[in-house]
């Protein structure tokens, strides 16, 4: 097969163009790939910043919750005990030695009770330090506090108490999550009995909180207003799954599952 000179020239030009176009497409592909990689990295940084901001917000909320508890405790418990002590001491008549001794003994017992309550409050104030000791301890303290009100009967299975490792950021969010669920139960459920089951199964943490309250319609629009939207958001932050089952007048069960620590 013979080619004319012009055909050979055309072949050379065409082949050279092909050999030049190939690197152009390769470089465009690489440039696009690097651009996407850069965008992805920037997105990761933004997400990380959002997460850190959310952790900070959660930290503040935990502190607020603690302050509310302390205020309520000071007013309802320690305040009452000290008022009673003052009343007792005021009514002492030194001439009636026997009665005075009894009243002083009563006052000493009331003061001792107040000291015990104050110690418990001091512990609560160190919520972040408690988290350093482990999520199990921090949660247990929350449960104890709710139980102490005498309004609710609690059944607790807290396997986290046996753990000796922590996950600081996740722990803070989980503590706030449980606080939020308990707040919802206290505010809306009208329950008498609360069951908490916390189990760690093959690196997965299962938290199930059940109450026997009035329940609500999970599918009904607007149930997010019950504080569940922040519960949902926090579960997403710790990359967990949330499952809510509720039957009207029977109660509610909330199940959270996540990778832990």
């Amino acid at each position, binding site marked *: 097969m013979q080619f004319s000179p012009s055909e050979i020239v055309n072949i050379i030009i065409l082949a050279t163009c092909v050999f*030049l176009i190939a690197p152009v497409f390769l470089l465009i592909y690489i440039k696009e790939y690097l*651009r996407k*990689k850069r965008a992805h990295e920037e997105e990761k940084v933004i997400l990380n910043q959002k997460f850190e901001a959310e952790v900070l917000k959660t930290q503040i909320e935990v502190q607020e919750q603690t302050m509310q508890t302390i205020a309520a405790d000071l007013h309802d418990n320690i305040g009452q005990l000290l008022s009673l002590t003052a009343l007792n001491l005021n009514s002492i008549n030194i001439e009636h030695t026997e009665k005075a001794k009894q009243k002083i003994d009563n006052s000493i017992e009331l003061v001792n009770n107040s000291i015990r309550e104050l110690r418990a409050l001091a512990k609560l104030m160190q919520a972040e330090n408690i988290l350093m000791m482990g999520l199990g301890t921090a949660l247990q303290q929350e449960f104890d506090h709710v139980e102490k009100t005498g309004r609710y009967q609690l059944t607790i299975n807290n396997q986290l108490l046996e753990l000796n490792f922590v996950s600081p950021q996740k722990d803070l969010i989980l503590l706030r999550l449980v606080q939020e669920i308990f707040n919802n139960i206290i505010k809306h459920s009208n329950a008498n009995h609360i069951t908490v089951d916390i189990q760690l199964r093959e690196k997965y943490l299962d938290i199930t909180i059940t109450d026997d309250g009035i329940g609500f319609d999970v599918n009904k629009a607007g149930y997010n207003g019950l504080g569940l939207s922040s519960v949902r958001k926090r579960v997403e932050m710790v990359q967990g799954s949330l499952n809510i089952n509720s039957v009207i007048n029977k109660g509610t069960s909330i199940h959270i599952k996540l990778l832990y620590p």
Partner: protein
Amino acid sequence: MISSANILFEFICFVMALCFLKGNDKFTLFTKLYLGLVCITETSGFLWMMCTNKSNIWIFNIYILFEALYISFGLYHFIKPFKKNVKPLYIATYLIFIAVYLYGSFTRGFFKFQTTAIMVASVLIVFLCLYYYHNLMKSDKIISIRNNLGFWWVAAVLFFYFGSTVYNLFMNVIFSNKPFAYEILVYIMLTLNAILYGIWSYSFICSSRHQKLLTSSY
């Protein structure tokens, strides 16, 4: 006229390197030296041809030894941040080229253009360019292409050596049998040189921009 255009491209690139390429590293030094050598080679080849009316191929045969050395060093310099043990690859590339070059010189003579050695070098250089981009894409480092000397320097090399495949393949045939196609090959080489030195000049500007960004951020 074509030789003058080539000398002009090379000279502009050399001036750009002197103006924009700052730093005390080996790459900066070798680039300036190499581009100076390119200008000297092209000018002396042109003058030799004009004055003696004899072939200047022997000048370019000496020059390609330095060309292969500089290009493989440049690729080694840019791949090094991604791969620690890349030196053997760079040395092997140059040794293979030298072996083919010497074999060609003994069998065909020193006064004939070392087409086979150039083709082998082109294949190895294209492979190293692709290896650089592969590592760049795999790397965790985020680079700004706008200011990246390495990306554009390697791009120019890839364009030149991949684009010159047809030139290298046809050169031997054309020199002997098809003199009518000689002119088009010369124009192709002129275009490739324009691309190579044009993108290299741009890469030196990128380097200068990057340096300015670094100094302004301190």
